């Protein structure tokens, strides 16, 4: 088992290396570099900027060197924890991101907790009460939840909040708590805002997990060992929780990494629409401004989160389900 885990970790490190290359390529794709777009912006603002100034800017940020040297410098910095300077904010990228990343992480993990707790309960209910009114209505809600893009759900919630509750559901803090220090009141305010992005981010995942849980559990419920357990006179609840649900959990856990991918992937859009103070708006702005180091590190972080998350879920699965063997089948 240990060997398996170590193999997985080595594989993850390789993947991270390739991801760093891909991130770097993506941010280098746009024609022109930051110096050009900076000059263009200053130009439209009515300022005169000379060719020498552009050139010195380029030298200062090392944009004049060949691309592989730029990459090596960049990745060497990243490994040592130096993510370079944000060209837009004129501050270290690490600092800019550090302000906002905790919120993204908090949002992602709260959403995951929401998805699994809700999906497990509803999934079990739907499987046990198959074809009941509740089951059917959850199926319908699930279909709609899967089909509604995150941002549309966010817009609808924003409209409802505005229309019926007179409350702005955007952001994570009310006006008076925006800059305040952490306190109970601020925490309460924060939690009262947090449910909107969690709901928006989690709906599609919940819908999907309910379907999985329901399908797997339905398969398990008809098996002989359930009948055997029933014959021993256990209560229905105990039978359900102790045996089939435990087995049905495995496919659910194996999707953990995948679900994390979906949540992290959806986070930027939700952050932008709800104007959350997390990494979403930062990322979008960095992309639009061609703030390459910031954008590159953001792509790298999003990917790394997902890859490490997948690693954790794989290891969890290996520990939880001893039947899993990654050996080659000849």
């Amino acid at each position: 088992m240990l060997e398996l885990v170590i193999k997985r970790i080595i594989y993850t490190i390789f993947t991270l290396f390739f991801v760093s290359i891909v991130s770097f390529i993506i941010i280098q794709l746009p024609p022109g570099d930051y110096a050009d777009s900076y000059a263009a912006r200053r130009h439209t603002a009515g300022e005169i900027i000379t060719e020498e100034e552009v050139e010195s800017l380029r030298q200062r940020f090392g944009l004049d060197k060949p691309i592989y040297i730029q990459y090596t410098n960049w990745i060497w910095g990243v490994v040592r924890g130096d993510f370079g300077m944000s060209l837009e904010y004129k501050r270290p990228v690490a600092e800019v991101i550090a302000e906002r990343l905790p919120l993204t992480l908090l949002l992602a993990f709260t959403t995951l907790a929401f998805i699994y707790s809700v999906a497990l309960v509803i999934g079990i209910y739907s499987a046990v009460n198959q074809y009941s009114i509740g089951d059917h209505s959850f199926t319908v809600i699930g279909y709609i939840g899967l089909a509604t893009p995150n941002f549309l759900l966010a817009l609808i919630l924003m409209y409802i909040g505005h229309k019926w509750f007179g409350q702005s559901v955007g952001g994570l803090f009310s006006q008076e708590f925006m800059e305040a220090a952490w306190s109970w009141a601020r925490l309460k305010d924060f939690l009262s805002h947090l449910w909107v992005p969690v709901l928006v981010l989690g709906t599609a995942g919940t819908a999907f997990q309910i379907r999985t849980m329901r399908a797997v559990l339905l398969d398990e419920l008809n098996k002989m060992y359930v009948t055997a357990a029933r014959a021993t006179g256990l209560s229905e609840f105990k039978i359900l929780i102790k045996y089939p649900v435990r087995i049905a959990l495995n496919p659910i856990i194996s999707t953990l990494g995948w679900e994390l991918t979906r949540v992290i992937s959806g986070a930027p859009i939700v952050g932008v629409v709800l104007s959350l103070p997390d990494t979403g708006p930062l990322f979008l702005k960095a992309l639009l401004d061609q703030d390459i180091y910031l954008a590159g590190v953001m792509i790298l972080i999003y990917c790394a989160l997902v890859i490490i998350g997948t690693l954790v879920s794989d290891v969890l699965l290996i520990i939880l389900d001893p039947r899993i063997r990654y050996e080659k089948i000849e």
Partner: protein
Amino acid sequence: MSIIKEKTKKSKNIKRIDIATYKQLVWWKFKRHFMALLGLGVIAIFLIISIFAEFLSPYTPHLRDPVYIGGPPMRIHFFDKNGKFYIRPFVYSYKTKRDPTTLRLIPSIDENKRLPVRFFVNGAKYKLWAIFPLNIHLFDVQKGFVHLFGTDELGRDVFSRCLYATRSSLSVGLIGVIFTFVLGLIMGGIAGFIGGTIDNIIMRLIEFIRSLPEIPLWLGLSASLPRDWSALKVYFAITIILSLISWTNLARRVRSKLLALREEDFIISAKLAGCSRGRIISRHLLPSFSSYIIVDITISFPWMILGETSLSFLGLGLREPAVSYGVLLYSAQNILALAHMPWLLIPGIFVVIAVIAFNFIGDGLRDAADPYSKM
């Protein structure tokens, strides 16, 4: 004589199901899914909308109604305010007033003047499918405008814009799916047929792509498109970006099927009969799992639509003057616009309905793709 009689007697006992062709079996099984049939019907309507968008919409997507700006959807009436019945449906005329408190110009309904809806009227000129110059529209009113879904902040008819958007959003999906299909088939085909190191490399590549969060990648890629590209260029670039990530599913399917079928008897006999590799793939291998490919494609279709909508919504996909669901929803982005004009969310309903319909079809097809099970 008696033998022949016995044979005909036997053939009468043969059930329809035993002699049905593969296509018939698939269709029978598909038909049993009510929701899948419903989805098929809905998608048919969407197709008709996108083919005849110019004819079905009363106005062009960029025509501005100078009087009815940011106006709510108009109701179709049969009875006027005095309760008098008219056989021809009508909408009320409207005027602009200034809001006494905010001083904003707001359109208001004038219940004294009726605008009867007429069908098959001549209106704005257009070229159907860029070939036939026509000016006939399904419906319109005389001396005024009819706005079934209201108008946006520039006075453009949301109903017409939705119909045009259906065309571009659906076609982005279609072209994206075609790219996905080609890429998936080639990569999966190479991996499955050549095998060895190349297979290994392609499979690792697929695993790699699948382990990445797609939306940040899409955003990064589409942000790198040059701003001065024409709408058509951006359109194709976006579809390629969308399919760059989605081909992996299909490639996996093609590869696993190729590997499974390679050792089947009918392939070996084709080989013995002297068929070339190309012929074996195209005539024997591909048709035997084409149904699975169709299922995978149907399932990936809604992801394309959602992807395009999300990108355009953020301003990184299609942009004005192109009209797609995402472009339309872009103007609903801020809460103020949304609060004044909630009908700008109507294109979102189109998206949801299209995606649900495709999901239903996909579910039905998945079941029908293997018609020999439990029939």
